[in-house]
């Protein structure tokens, strides 16, 4: 009886050791199947499309789909890069001082004001873009910002700026106040304290928020679609849509464009994963 039980436990443990990773692989594989399909098809000659489901591996690798995609979309890629980087600079550039100011004001007597400000920032993240973009169109029309990279940087920062400020503030709150006070005592001005003490310390949070702002702007479609209507400025998301609707049969280059559009996500996952996880949690759970 006892012997039987321990044997059972032994096999159970053994089975778990093998079955758990296999189950995990199955779950992950299932989730990533569409991405696998995308990469695989993008590397295949278009004529092989008919035999898609039969072959899990491409019959032979080609890169011509990528050449077609790149020829068609390289302008959009540059546009999207400029917009995303601009949004990062604007969001972090405005958000970091704001986070510093809010943190310090919180130490002074303005706690209520600060918590209202934080609440406003939280709420702005929940405003649907469509409720803004109709007014943006009219506003940008008057400011001559329609169909411009600057306009899209400003619009895309609506999701980036509040997020960056919140993440940075949560981080700055964890830096001991004595550090900046010490600099202050040593005669550094408020600006100097901010620039030479706080900003360097906040680098991890700057990276986190910067990565997210980049991803938001890079993935933005709503503003790209509505605020460039009929114009020449074409971010990659908008370019991808028109490329797709113009190539309903020839999917290879379209899926190659999808892969190009997903490169930042892949890079960020590869190199900045801990920042991503930190940002996910900070953005969701802290106020």
């Amino acid at each position, binding site marked *: 009886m006892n012997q039987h039980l321990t044997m059972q436990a032994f096999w159970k443990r053994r089975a778990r050791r093998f079955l758990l990773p296999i189950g995990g692989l199955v779950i992950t594989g299932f989730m990533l199947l569409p*991405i696998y399909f995308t990469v695989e098809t993008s590397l295949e000659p278009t004529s092989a499309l008919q035999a898609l*489901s039969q072959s899990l591996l491409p019959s032979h690798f080609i890169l011509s789909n990528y050449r077609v995609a790149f020829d068609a979309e390289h302008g959009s890629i540059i546009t999207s890069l400029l917009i995303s980087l601009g949004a990062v600079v604007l969001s972090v550039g405005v958000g970091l001082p704001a986070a510093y*100011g809010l943190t310090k004001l919180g130490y002074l*007597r303005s706690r209520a004001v600060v918590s209202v400000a934080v609440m406003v920032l939280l709420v702005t993240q*929940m405003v*649907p873009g469509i409720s803004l973009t109709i007014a943006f169109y*009219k506003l940008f029309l008057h400011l001559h910002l329609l169909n411009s990279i600057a306009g899209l940087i400003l619009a895309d920062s*609506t999701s980036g700026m509040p997020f960056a400020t919140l993440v940075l503030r949560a981080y700055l709150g964890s830096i001991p106040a004595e550090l900046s006070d010490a600099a202050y005592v040593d*005669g550094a001005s408020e600006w100097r304290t901010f620039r030479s003490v706080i900003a360097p310390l906040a680098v991890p949070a700057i990276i986190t928020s910067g990565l997210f702002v980049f991803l938001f702007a890079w993935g933005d*479609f709503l503003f790209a679609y509505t605020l460039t209507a009929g114009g020449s400025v074409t971010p990659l998301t908008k370019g991808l849509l028109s490329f797709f609707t113009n190539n309903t049969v020839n999917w290879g280059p379209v899926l190659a464009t999808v892969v190009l559009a997903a490169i930042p996500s892949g890079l960020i996952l590869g190199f900045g994963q801990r920042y991503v996880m930190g940002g996910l949690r900070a953005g969701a759970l802290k106020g």
Partner: protein
Amino acid sequence: MPREEPPPERQATWSVRATASANKAPVEARPGALPDDGRMPSLSGALRQATPPPPKGARQWLQSHRRQALLVAFVLPALAYVVIFFAYPLIYGVTMSLEKIGFIAQSGPFIGLHNYKEEISDPVTGKALVDTGIFLLASIFFQFTIGLGIASYFNRRFFLSGLLRSLIIIPWLFPPIASGTIFAIMFAGQGGIIDETLRSLHLISSPIFWFDSSFKAMFVIIFVNVWIGIPFNAVLLYSGLQDIPGELREAAALDGCGAWQKFRYVTVPLLRPVSLIVIMLGIIYTVKTFDLVIVLTNGGPDNGSQLMSTWAYTLAFQNFQTGAGAAVANMLFVFCMIVAFFYIRATRREVAIG
């Protein structure tokens, strides 16, 4: 209680002030701010000795408020941004919804709540409202349950678990328009991989045209949105599960609880706060969905898969009914603000407990 401990904020206030005054003029900290009981940080103690007695009154007021004003200046650009890019467009959106505007670049006369009345009785708006509700409920339900399943699976450590866990996030990091394109191609009626697979499994005999009925189109949109949302739910629920001390489950096991009972009486109640937050964030992300619909169905067939967001877009940018579009967008906004209210209430409580 022998001696009163200064409350933490006051202590912070005091040290900031003291250092502030040390910087420029030899001004002392607020008089009688705190008793010097030897428990102050040494820095402040040193300061106190170094600075001569303070001139009281106006100068001191200026000193402390100067610092506050300086800090407000740090916040000012962000404030300006929020006013110009949130407050102003939202107010402008309200005034537009009260006007009879056709083409978006034009302006029109004030017509009161006419746009709202018209849109509420409009059958397409009604369907968009219902579809948005179905989309929301179905998306959240499946994202959450599947996400929770994945989170609990990965809650046990095993070979490769860390790597696989991080790979699962990928769909969430993809630009939604890219995910939408992938699935538009996968669901294509002729030659799409889903159709081909179903056919080679002999589950269907003729191609399914996924986008030719409102029901099927909505199914696809929900399917893709669930795929995108699962990672977000899984990651946050995973961190919620990790925060539950293992001893609690062990104690329950010692008390004779089975797996289900442990889940029901330990995991579920302790995961409740995180779940609430995840669900509310999910609602907000989901209700904003726009890209997916445009690339998958473009609202069709025959406006059969319009959500409130895409319907507002269609009205304002394509149907030359900008006033009506603004009205629909505002309805969506009000809904989001109601969710936001509950979200903030929940996170505040969460913060208070944590």
